[in-house]
Each structure stands twice: as structure tokens, then as C-alpha cells.
């Protein structure tokens, strides 16, 4: 496969996943904002989302205060924000269009229809009354896309690169969502109710509230939340679950290429092993924030190595 094709497939997977993650994050921030009282706290939910999505520096550059209206506009629709939902959809479609021959008709239609529909959005689409429906729609479209390639794509190289993109983005997102709330998980809380809302928010961001109860049959507790999102392989959005998929996928590509391996394969193996055999007690003792920051950095490095080995060969 052409390196450029692999690159486009990888980013197609990443951008679709990112659009979905931003939408989930916005749903949670909306909910938190409506549950908390006082403007300062409401805005802090939106600020947290800006940080978790890596959009804070870009937003600050606009000079606007982080009010709900301004953040919603920036995260949902701003063409100047490369990670806004509309920008992600645009970028996904651009990548899909660049590799029409490598994607299935179903995938193309999932992306192309999403894009045509998104282009019809107006300021009203993002108004408070309409925003929840828009976010549901985005989530639905990303699930449709993931289903279209997960179900109907030949298990060959093209599928592996899309999946690699999805999983890299997903691992990064889960780590960031946790990290932005690490205070709520680590510190002794001044206000129990606020902390509880934050804990719920973390779980909701990765659609894991019910999963938590199924796994633990217990009240929400920081240690368990961190364990679920980092170390439990049965949660599809946990960091370890994403790394299992990334390792499997990179191994699959290497096997199809007659065993050709590089630094990305070593790195993913090391990272996956660390997560697979890691204990939450050790992570909490060493500092959750440090652990998550290191994970995010290593994920970035893995992305660079994949880029060097396959995508810009």
C-alpha cells in the first residue's frame, strides 16, 4: 500500500474518532453546566473540556472568555480550530476522498453523507435548544462509520490503518479526560457533591457509567474509576484496551509484511505490557497526574514512530 494511502486511512480513523470524542465531551460539559450553580463553576466545565481536547491554546488565542457560547462555537463549528467537530468531519472526508480506492462504498457514504449534512449546519444548529440533537447526531454518525468499517471491511492493510487511527485517538482521549480531572480523583474533596458530579462526568465522557456499576457493583470511587479507565481490558475505551488493539494491529501489519518491524512495535509492546501488568495502587502512589502525562507523551511518541515507519516511508 502507498504510504500516503496508509496516512490518509490512519487520519480518517483518527478524525472520525475525534469528532465523536469532542461530541461526547460536549454532552458531558452541557450536563455538568446544568447541574452546577454559579457562573464560575459552569465555565470551569467548559474550560476542562478545552484542556482535555487539547484545544485550550487555540481557544485562548481567540481572546474570548471561556463562556459556554464561545466554547461551544469553538469546539463544534470553528473552521479555525482543526479539532472542531466540523473541521474533523471535513478532514475525515478529505482523507477519505484522497483514498477512495481504499475505502468501501459504505465507509465512503458514511463519511460523505455526514459531511454533506454537516455543511448544511447554521448558527442555529449550535443554539442551546438544538445542540443536544446535533451532538447525538455526531455520535451516531461516528458509530455508523466505525460499524461500516468494523463490519464490512476486508481484514487487510487498509482496515488495519483505519483501526490504528481510531485506537490511537481513543487511547489519547481517555488519558486526557482522566488527566484533566485528576484533581477530583486525587485530592481530598472540599465538596462531596461537586466531586461526585465530576466523577460521573469522567465516566460519561467515555460512555462508562453503567459499565462501572456492572464491573464493580459499588459506589463511585476515584481509585476504581481510574482503574476502570486505565487498566480494565473489558472496557473498550480504557487505555489498556486501546493499547491491546494497537499492538494487535501493528503486529498484524508486521506479519503481513513478512515480519518487518520497527521502533513503533517495540514501543507499543512495552506500553501495553506496562498497562496490562500494572496495578492501580502503584499508579495512585506514584501520582495519577504524572502517570497520565507520561502516557500521553508516550502515545505522542508512538504516533511519531508509526508516522516514520509506515506513513512517510
Amino acid at each position, binding site marked *: 500500500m502507498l504510504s500516503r494511502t496508509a496516512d490518509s486511512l490512519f487520519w480518517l480513523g483518527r478524525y472520525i474518532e475525534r469528532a465523536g470524542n469532542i461530541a461526547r465531551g460536549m454532552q458531558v460539559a452541557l450536563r455538568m453546566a446544568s447541574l452546577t450553580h454559579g457562573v464560575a463553576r459552569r465555565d470551569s466545565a467548559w474550560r476542562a473540556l478545552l484542556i482535555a481536547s487539547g484545544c485550550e491554546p487555540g481557544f485562548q488565542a481567540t481572546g474570548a472568555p471561556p463562556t459556554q457560547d464561545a466554547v461551544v462555537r469553538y469546539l463544534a463549528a470553528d473552521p479555525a480550530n482543526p479539532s472542531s467537530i466540523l473541521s474533523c468531519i471535513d478532514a475525515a472526508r478529505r482523507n477519505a476522498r484522497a483514498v477512495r480506492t481504499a475505502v468501501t462504498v459504505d465507509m465512503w457514504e458514511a463519511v460523505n453523507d455526514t459531511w454533506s449534512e454537516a455543511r448544511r449546519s447554521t448558527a442555529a444548529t449550535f443554539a442551546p435548544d438544538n445542540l443536544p440533537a446535533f451532538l447525538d447526531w455526531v455520535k451516531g454518525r461516528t458509530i455508523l462509520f466505525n460499524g461500516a468499517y468494523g463490519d464490512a471491511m476486508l481484514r487487510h492493510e487498509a482496515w488495519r490503518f483505519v483501526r490504528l487511527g481510531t485506537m490511537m485517538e481513543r487511547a489519547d482521549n481517555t488519558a486526557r479526560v482522566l488527566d484533566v480531572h485528576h484533581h477530583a480523583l486525587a485530592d481530598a474533596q472540599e465538596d462531596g457533591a461537586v466531586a461526585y458530579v465530576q466523577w460521573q462526568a469522567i465516566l460519561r465522557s467515555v460512555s462508562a457509567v453503567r459499565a462501572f456499576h456492572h464491573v464493580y457493583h459499588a459506589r463511585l470511587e476515584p481509585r476504581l474509576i481510574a482503574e476502570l479507565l486505565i487498566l480494565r481490558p473489558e472496557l473498550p475505551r480504557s487505555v489498556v484496551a486501546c493499547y491491546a488493539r494497537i499492538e494487535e494491529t501493528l503486529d498484524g501489519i508486521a506479519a503481513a509484511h513478512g515480519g518487518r518491524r520497527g521502533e513503533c512495535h517495540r514501543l507499543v509492546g512495552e506500553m501495553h505490557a506496562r498497562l496490562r501488568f500494572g496495578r492501580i495502587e502503584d499508579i495512585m502512589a506514584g501520582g495519577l497526574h504524572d502517570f497520565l502525562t507520561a502516557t500521553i507523551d508516550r502515545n505522542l511518541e508512538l504516533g511519531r514512530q508509526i508516522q516514520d515507519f509506515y506513513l512517510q*516511508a
Partner: protein
Amino acid sequence: MTKTTPAFDEMAADGLVRGPYAEIARWLAATPAAALERRRQEAELLFKRIGITFAVYGEGGDPERLIPFDIIPRILARAEWEALSRGLTQRVRALNLFLLDVYGAQEIIRAGRIPAALVRQNEAFRPEMAGFVPPGGVYTHIAGIDVVRTDPDNFWVLEDNCRTPSGVSYMLEGREAMLRLFPDLCGAHRVAPVGHYPEELLETLKSVAPPNCRTVPRVAILTPGSYNSAYYEHCFLADEMGIEVVEGPDLFVEDEVVYMRTTTGSQRVDVIYRRIDDDYLDPEVFRPESVLGVPGLMAAYKAGNVSLANAPGAGIADDKAVYPYVPEMIRFYLGEEPLLANVPTYLCERDEDRAYVLDHLDELVVKLTHGSGGYGMLVGPHSTAEQRADFAARIRAKPAEYIAQPTLALSTVPTLVEKGIAPRHVDLRPFVLCGKEVRVVPGGLTRVALREGSLVVNSSQGGGTKDTWVLEDDPADIAAPQGQGQTQC
């Protein structure tokens, strides 16, 4: 077409329906207008979903446009097609022999059958190709010959496209759409298939593998990228042939061998079906600022390590100023009389011709010698005095840049328009493949001018397309059926 001259309608004339259209006439008569309109919308949705677009940049609005598809097919009987096909084969053989000659011994010039200056000083002439013989001696492997029709017996060649003719994807997708939307109607005809075009194309490309290729040739299609108007087609063809669609930066040349960058390392490429212009192919030989091309490509080509289709320099054969000499080429190289007629053409560069053109601007079609896509064109009978004055000034200033032809009464085919079914002017671009042998897939791209009376069929100028059916039999004419659905206007 001026309204005073009735054009030849390919379906009906004088209360009779021409044989190939007998079933279509019955179908149109039996189908209510609303049902046709519904099917038209279904077709549009189908094309939109597949994403078949044609990119038009620099005009504002949506750059990715859908070319309107008309659901009423354009039909040719077997005998009509066979005659046309023989003429096309003859023409493309002569065009290739001409190319081999002008980049070789230039016998046609020495024999005085074409002016030397017209060839050697033409910007489409590539001195870099002089003395080089491409594999199989073929220059134009994929040619699109635009033909128009004025009556039951006469097809005229309007222009040749020997460089990178596009539109074949519309031929293929149009057929797919018809089979999906109208299985019964298709089944009621014996329509010659076109679906094997990509296989024929791949065979053609493989048959011109370079002399140094000792394996099964690896073929790739070279595109300028996703902003090119025909990008959809490049991907479509690559997909159908199971080959890679590459951009310049995907390729590199090492020791005069072309490789593509892949996830498994570099892979040698043997044949490149290039869809980028000569000027951008290789910055070391042509335009140095080109980022679309591949440095060293021409050296690899000349070393016999890669084949390029179509060959650089093929454009000299389809130049509009060279066009009037094609019948002469056929006589010179093949010793045959041309089977397909040329449209009489006035070269504004010649004093006599220019005087005639300037006197008859209201009757003629004036075109840019090096233009394409229907841009920069004057259709005399439809022009205003102001437009004619403007063209007259331009012709006087740069006569070599203009040619003129009489306005032909292009044939019409019933077309579904807002008011119902109405005759609209059409042309036809069949695709001729030339490798070890010449192959013509039965059919081509029928373009239709959707505006009433318009003669300009280019998609950039409001033209649409129709599926082109070549029948495997020759049905007899019938009396015109009466019905509810047909609203001739």
C-alpha cells in the same frame, strides 16, 4: 442551433420512430411525467451518494459539482456503430503514425503534406521526444474522439483528444445507474456491454510495458491530486483495475528506475497511466517549478525503464491547428480515404481564412486553438454584436490562437427537462484504446446541452450526460406511439 434550421432528431422524424428508439418511444409514451421525474431524482441521488463529482474551481459556489445525468439513453444501432467504430480505428491509427513520424523522420513534412512551421513551432510539439520511440511505437494509448451527427448518415469529427481525455467514468457509472434504475428497459434491448473497459485499459497499458520490464508489469495511475476536476475518475479507474492511484510525491526515481513509496518499502513501477499534463511531468525536463511531477521521470522513460501513457508530446496530434490535416494523415500513412469526415476548419492565421471568418462571425463557431472545456468560445448564431466585436478584435490581435468552424446542426435526442421531454443537442466521445492492438468499447460518453437551443455540451458550461447504448441488432422503424407521458416542447 438556430431555431430556423430543424436539427435531425435521433428518435423521431415525420411521425416515424427510428428503429433503435422503438422501445424507448413506447416507454416514454407509457410513463407519466411524474414517474419520469421521480426516476430522475433517484438517479441524481445515486450519483450524489457515490460521490461522482466534477470539480470546477475559480467560479465561486460549490467547487464539487454533480454533472446532471439524463435518464433517457442515446441509442445507436449496430450498423451505425460499426461504421463509426471503423472510422475511429482508422483515425487513431493515423494519429499514432503521425506522432511516430513527427518525432522521427518527419516524412509527412518533407512530402509537403503539412507545413513544417505548424508542427515544429507548435507549443504542443515536444522537441525532447525527437528520436525516441515509445514501446510499441504508440503515443496516444487512450484517445477520446469527439464526434457529432447531423443526419442519419453523417458523423463528423469535431476534435481529437490525444493527451489525457476524461469522461470514461461517466460512461461506466451512467450504465450502472441505468441498470439499477431501469432493469426492465435495459432488458428489453440487446445493449452491448461497456463494463469491461477497465480490463481492456489495463491490458492496453500492460501491452506497452517498457523493454526493461521482465516481470508482470506493475501499472499505476498518476493524478495531479484531489483538486483536479477528473480526480474522481482517476480513483474510479484505479479501483476498477486494481492498481494504485499515485501523486507525484508518491514516486521517486533512483538510477533511472521509478519506485513508489509504500508501507512495505519502495516498489518498482513499470507503466504509468498519467493524467497530468506534459508540462508538469518532470521538473528536470519541463516546468522546473512543478511539484505535481516526478524529478527524473523522463530519464527513466528514455532509459526504457518505465512507460508513460499517453506519451509526452502526443498533444501535437490533437492541436486544433493540426486537426485540418488529419484526413491528409490518413491518406499519407494508410493510403486510405477517411471514413469519418472532418468539420471544415478555418485557421485564422491564414489571411484568406481570417478574412472569411471576420466576415461570417455570426455563422461560425470560433474556438481557441489551444483551449478546451468550452471556455473562450464564440457560437456565432447565438452571439451578440458586442461579443462578435470583441472576438473580431481578439482574432486580429492574435490570429494564430483562433480557428473557426461552421455551426453544425447537431443532432438532438429526447431529454427530460423541466418542461417535460424535449429534444436537446448531443455529441459523443468514444474512447479508443491503442496498445498492441486498437480496441473501441461500444459506446462512449454522450454529452447533452441541457439549455434549449444550446450547442455547447461541456460539463463546465451546463452540459449533462446520457448513457450511450450500442445495440447488438438493427431494429426497424415504427410508427410513433400515442401516449400520455410525452409532452414535446
